[in-house]
């Protein structure tokens, strides 16, 4: 049975409040023992050791909402390229989106995805399936069969189920099976055609805009439906200040609700679009600085539970268009950790809190065993140097698509090694 002892590490246990110097033993794909403080002389004789040199050792990131463009658009991203990008960024589990072509809405397509993932991905893949067939918002998918085939959650991606009756039935059915539904919170009428957040910047640039209130209205509707149906619900991205009070009330009322946000909405704002830079075109659009700061505080307080990359590969052709018609989304698997470390370096968040949002909370929400630094947890680990500075060059990314908004950005935090089920897959 393979054993490895990480020594001289800063252990980032999301359950703890602060990093703890110590050692960690993995055996047979699991964490066998966590040792706080210095090792006693002669402990673990004969065990292979890895001196971490004081670097941070944390549970691998569980990235909720990754788009791997298989099936349909393998030229944008395959399981092989996404897996390599993931482990290079310290992501050990990709929770994938079903907004592929065709949509992942039948057990047959899901099995194809699982097989491709098994064959090619260095990181674990836990797929989400569509909530409605073809993500068209008309009929619910075979939620039961899809769960049997391994779907960990149900979502129509960035589409809203507009017909509330259809949505209510799907939520009710999902509740009976204990399935988690991931919603996109936007009022579809108000947000139609909007590519920028309403405000001075969108007005100056002459871009079709959407009021930030559309997000609050979308969330309000979904909260009412949760109250009505009792479903388990995760709001994929809550990015505006005005949506936070209803989220807080819903949690206080004891509804089974959690919320996430993309790292881009925590580290960039609407002005980053500058002269129509389409790599900054995201869904929902980047927000005002006030909204960004409110979201950062909500992550720090735990009101927003999950930070993900919402990795969305797009090729150059679909981005080299006028802003209004260019494709939306950014790749993020490799930049999720260094970008979110900006919040730590900026004093907004502790490392341990950050890994609650990156690893523990998404794992817990999806019922996955990872996200912990405890004996018995899978040996999915990331070793990183939180301070190591670098300038990101998008050509060095492992993704097939390199549509990152962080090209040329100064970042801090380099991954030294990544382990999945005890196997070193990066570094």
């Amino acid at each position, binding site marked *: 049975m393979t054993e490895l002892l990480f020594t001289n590490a800063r252990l980032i246990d999301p359950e703890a409040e602060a990093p703890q110097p110590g050692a960690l033993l993995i055996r047979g794909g699991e964490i066998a023992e966590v040792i706080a403080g210095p090792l006693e002389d002669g402990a673990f004789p004969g065990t292979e050791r890895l001196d971490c040199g004081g670097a941070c050792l944390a549970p691998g990131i569980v990235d909720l909402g990754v788009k791997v463009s298989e099936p349909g658009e393998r030229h944008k991203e395959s399981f092989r390229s996404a897996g390599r990008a993931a482990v290079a960024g310290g992501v050990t589990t990709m929770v994938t989106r079903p907004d592929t072509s065709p949509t992942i809405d039948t057990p047959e397509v899901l099995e194809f995805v699982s097989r491709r993932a098994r064959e090619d991905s260095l990181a674990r893949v836990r797929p989400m399936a569509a909530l409605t067939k073809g993500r068209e918002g008309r009929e619910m998918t075979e939620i039961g069969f899809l769960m049997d085939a391994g779907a960990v959650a149900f979502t129509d991606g960035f589409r809203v189920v507009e017909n509330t009756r259809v949505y209510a039935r799907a939520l009710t059915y999902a509740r009976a099976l204990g399935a988690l539904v991931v919603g996109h919170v936007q009022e579809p009428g108000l947000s139609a055609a909007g590519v920028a957040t309403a405000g001075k910047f969108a*007005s100056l*640039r*002459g871009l079709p805009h959407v009021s930030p209130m559309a997000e609050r209205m979308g969330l309000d509707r979904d909260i009412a439906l949760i109250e009505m149906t009792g479903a388990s619900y995760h709001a994929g991205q809550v990015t505006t200040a005005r949506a936070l009070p209803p989220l807080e009330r819903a949690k206080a009322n004891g509804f089974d609700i959690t919320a996430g946000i993309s790292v881009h909405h925590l580290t960039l704002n609407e002005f980053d679009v500058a002269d129509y830079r389409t790599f900054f075109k995201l869904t929902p659009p980047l927000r005002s600085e006030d909204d960004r700061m409110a979201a950062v505080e909500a992550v720090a307080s735990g009101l927003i539970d999950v930070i993900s990359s919402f990795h969305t590969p797009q090729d150059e052709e679909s981005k080299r268009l*006028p802003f209004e018609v260019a494709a939306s989304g950014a790749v993020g698997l490799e930049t999720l950790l260094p970008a979110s470390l900006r919040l730590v370096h900026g004093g907004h968040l502790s490392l341990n809190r950050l890994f609650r949002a990156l690893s523990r909370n998404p794992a817990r929400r999806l019922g996955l065993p990872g996200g912990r630094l405890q004996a018995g947890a899978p040996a999915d680990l990331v070793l990183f140097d939180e301070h190591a500075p670098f300038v990101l060059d998008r050509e060095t990314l492992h993704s097939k698509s390199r549509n990152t908004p962080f090209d040329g950005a100064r970042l801090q935090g380099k991954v030294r090694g990544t382990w999945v089920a005890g196997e070193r897959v990066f570094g």
Partner: protein
Amino acid sequence: MTFRARHLLGIEPLGQDEIVALLDRAEIHANEMRDGVTPERRLAGLTQINMFFEASTRTQASFELAGKRLGADVMNMAMGSSSLKKGETLIDTALTLNAMRPDLIVVRHPHSGAVDLLAQKVNCAVLNAGDGRHEHPTQALLDALTIRRAKGRLHRLSIAICGDIAHSRVARSNLLLLGKMENRLRLVGPPTLMPPGISELGVEVFESMEEGLKGADVVMMLRLQKERMDGGYIPSEREYYHRYGLDAEKLAYAKDDAIVMHPGPMNRGVEIDGTIADDINRSVIQTQVEMGVAVRMAAMELLAENLKQANARGAEGIGA
């Protein structure tokens, strides 16, 4: 002479001195035209391509005439009917045209920012003839020249821009230019046609013509697009005319010598009363058209000079 830019993509990057340089050059052309002087053929031997991805008769004719007066070889491309429909991207179209080695490209496009994108991919000078709701710089320059000639100055004027501000690139370029020249700007229109956050740009926003026009030196009306008229943004054409159409009664709130402007084409009886538009004591609408040719001559001439200098520097291996 301080206008050194390679392209004219918008008013936003221009400084006061650049705006004044463009207007001064245009003024010379305007006076020459009035005096019947044939201009020097400063664009002789140069090729000007007009690419209009959105139909326009007036602006395209104005650019064409301006180029021809200065001796350029002018080619019009009706883009609506050609390559874009075949699935060619804007970038490919730009590269194809660039390979034909034009000197000046005049572009109008329905999407904001599209002209900037195209300008990144070509070696010649690009003039923005209107991109989406973003900018229409030559319109703002011709408006500025018209105001300067009528009022004798282009600063410390109270200027009301009225109507569909939200969808208007003319309004954006004008408020940028007139703001840079230190005027007092007032935007007047129904709140549904007012862009959000616009009051943060140092302009006053009014919902009634009576208040907005009070004491104005210049009343600039905007065209209301047909597709915005029915129910979507305003209840009806007639209610709009009643509340926001410029007639003698509303114009009376402005200064006695206030001038009336409109970028055309006008909807008489929707945003402006026909008798006001035709009143030679108040309306400068025909002057605007006349200044349009002069401003476009000036802009193309200056860009051509800058291009020539840039190429000369390039040939000598100086600079980038």
